[in-house]
């Protein structure tokens, strides 16, 4: 279990370190992080790690250029995931889907706390519900495929890194379990 948690944490860190593009909206001079210099001059479009982008956004120095995941993307994934009846019909998730979805929900929650807005609350509830349903259906299909090597091969290319962590761990446990309980034949 610790191993799964550690791997998931690693994925989350990698996500936070991945560069994204931001538009600098306020002159802030030059900053150096880990030996990398970032010149923050108004109007410039630069690439910074995601965590730094968040900090700069909070400080009002820069805004991310790329549109993050939103309810429409979650809806699209929900539609295709719930349509999948077999592992073969499952579709790959967009990159960083789970982490992006969680981030989106967190941001919505923060906004709701600040400004109470009924439609935002409804959007947040829907996003949570859809995300749980997506997880549930994908988990069912992963569990369905775990018993056959062909299904594992079919499904693994469509899984997100987080799901692969689970699949590999389940596979290992299953193999160990089978090995332990299978009758051992004595060679003549």
């Amino acid at each position: 279990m610790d191993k799964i948690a550690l791997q998931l944490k690693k994925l989350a860190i990698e996500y936070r370190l991945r560069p994204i593009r931001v538009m600098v909206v306020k002159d802030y001079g030059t900053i150096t992080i880990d030996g990398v210099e970032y010149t923050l001059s108004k109007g410039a479009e630069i690439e910074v790690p995601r965590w730094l982008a968040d900090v700069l956004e909070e400080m009002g120095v820069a805004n991310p250029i790329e549109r993050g995941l939103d309810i429409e993307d979650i809806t699209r994934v929900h539609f295709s995931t719930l349509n999948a009846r077999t592992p073969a019909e499952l579709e790959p998730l967009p990159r960083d889907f789970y982490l992006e979805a969680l981030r989106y929900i967190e941001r919505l929650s923060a906004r709701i706390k600040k400004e109470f807005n009924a439609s935002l609350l409804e959007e947040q509830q829907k996003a949570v519900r859809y995300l749980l349903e997506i997880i549930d259906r994908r988990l069912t299909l992963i569990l369905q495929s775990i018993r056959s090597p062909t299904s594992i091969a079919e499904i693994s290319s469509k899984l997100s890194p987080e799901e692969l962590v689970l699949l590999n761990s389940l596979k290992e446990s299953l193999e160990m379990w089978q090995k332990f309980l299978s009758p051992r034949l004595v060679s003549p």
Partner: protein
Amino acid sequence: METLRLDVEEVIDARERFYEFIRSFRDRNGNYKYRERLRQMITMGQRSLLIDYNDLYLFDTKLARLLVEKPDEVLRQASEALKDLVQAESPEYVEGKRFYVRIRALPKITPLRSLRGEHIGKLVMLEGILVRTTPVKEKIVKAMYMHCSREQGCHEFIWPPEGEIVGDMLEKPPVCPICGSSSGAFRLLPEKSELIDWQKIVLQERPEEVPPGQLPRSIEVVLHDDLVDVARPGDRVTIVGIVRVQPDSLSKKKAIYDMFVDAIHVEVSQKILEEVVITREDEERIKALARDPWVRKKIIASIAPAIYGLWDIKEAIALALFGGVPKITPDGVRIRGDIHVLIVGDPGTAKSQLLQYAARIAPRGIYTTGKGATAAGLTAAVIRDKTTGEYYLEAGALVLADGGVAAIDEIDKMRDEDRVAIHEAMEQQTVSIAKAGIIAKLNARTTVIAAGNPKFGRYLTNRTLADNINLPVTILSRFDLIFILKDEPKPEEDRRLAQHVLEVHRESEKVKPEIEPELLKKYISYARRYIRPRLTPEAAKLIEDFYVEMRRMSTESSEGAITITARQLEALIRLAEAHAKMALKNEVTVEDAEAAIRLMKTFLESAGLDIESGRIDIDVIMTGKPRSKQEKLTRIMEIIESLENESPEGCARLKEILRRAAAEGIESRIVEEALRGFRRDGLVYEKSVGCYAVVR
């Protein structure tokens, strides 16, 4: 109240839910999105309400799913809900109108190739190119019948009854709903019936989606009412519709059915080259590549690396793939950005391979031959469907490659109809057609990279370009760059070529392109989509100076041959822009202008050379005759005229013409050739044997 079963447990009242959705759906900003749209629809006098599927899904997931599963019933009820809402909003607007709920942007695109029986009766979203359209026709939705019987006399009634509409077949009512009798005569009154616009189109898979070696799949789509004529052949469209079946028109076996789509919504793609997906990682790779100072050389070297040499031609192809910047002047005149390239060459000089490679790496690239594979050929045609007898407007290669590149091999062998239409396609970038009652103007904003064989089997250096290829000069002059590939034995060059070819056969890995074709395609697509370089004053000055200098040379030469025209000036600008685009630069610098000038000079020195004077003369391409020859022809005509006036028989004797021409240094070969030409063009006639007179 009517209800629909989604599954065993759940029952949905679609009409009520749609009513609620349109009335109460709020977007993220808290606006009543569909209430607004409804008002707008009434104000604009429209009858369709466009609904984003995603919004419906967010509002009621089950209803949205039911819409995909049972679209006929759900949409019927949705239309009724819409009518109720219009009634409440503007009662007078409802009078006798039919309202439609149109659904756009389903979350999933169904590939045309994977349409199967399981999709019948379901709502799908398809993408493809519209290749054919019929003219708009009228379809009866409510028929007016007159029933006459001996007992009851004659009376009129509407069929089918309230709530139903006529399907694909118009069936006679079994009994008269007024008198209840089935006897007597039922007569259809078309002019009193309710009719709606109807059009059939054919949607074809996009060329880039067709698996190698397979035929593109297509499907018929039926458009009704306000959907007719929203798209033209050649347009890339996204269609949301219901899959239906109709009896197979070819076989008489009644159990075989064809699929077709009954369109609910048609959206014409606005974005350029959106079919090439560029991910964030791709963008990073593209930008990293653009930072390489050798990027242009790498791109050129990546074009058909298996073909030895031909650097200038490869550079020209690369520039054509990137293209210049199209401009639209404030008065609406469109100046093309596409660079057209022609390669004329001896057999076995790898022309076709170059073209095939160009089509492969070009976004929206189509490879075809002059003869064309379809009835529509290169441009467009009106064709008649053999089975139904209907007339269709079908798009040809240049229209299908709109926004991309058409690689046309054997262009000299194209059909006569295309020969006429290609003029317009290459300069105005449209294809106009008026045949069989179909009048249309289709977009053909396509870059043409063409190749042709010399008329006499091999390129004859002692003849002009126009003499060497079976293409009218009017088409030749539309090419920005023309290259001549002569297969001449040169021992050293031949050895290098042989070594290269042997190397390719021995170790094919060694000819790996510098840039992977897939990445190059994305790079080109990115440049065409986002890069719009502007001429810097320095670059503009250089091009201007070159143009003026070339024109000055014309005035200095004794023959007064014109070396360059405004057409080449525009080509120079396009080439310079394309050169800048190749490195994803937003400015056209002196370096770009120099490259364009160098390439233009190469072209002029090979294709635009007057073989007699040895000087550059653009008239070789623009008129097919160099200025030196044109002057000789004028002089010959003058000789004929003066001899005709002097002679008592009223005509000029050949012997005398030859003598006078020789005195002015014109060879007899040219005189004989000129006379043949004059007679062919109807300028001169043979009054008596060996005696010529001018036609007046």
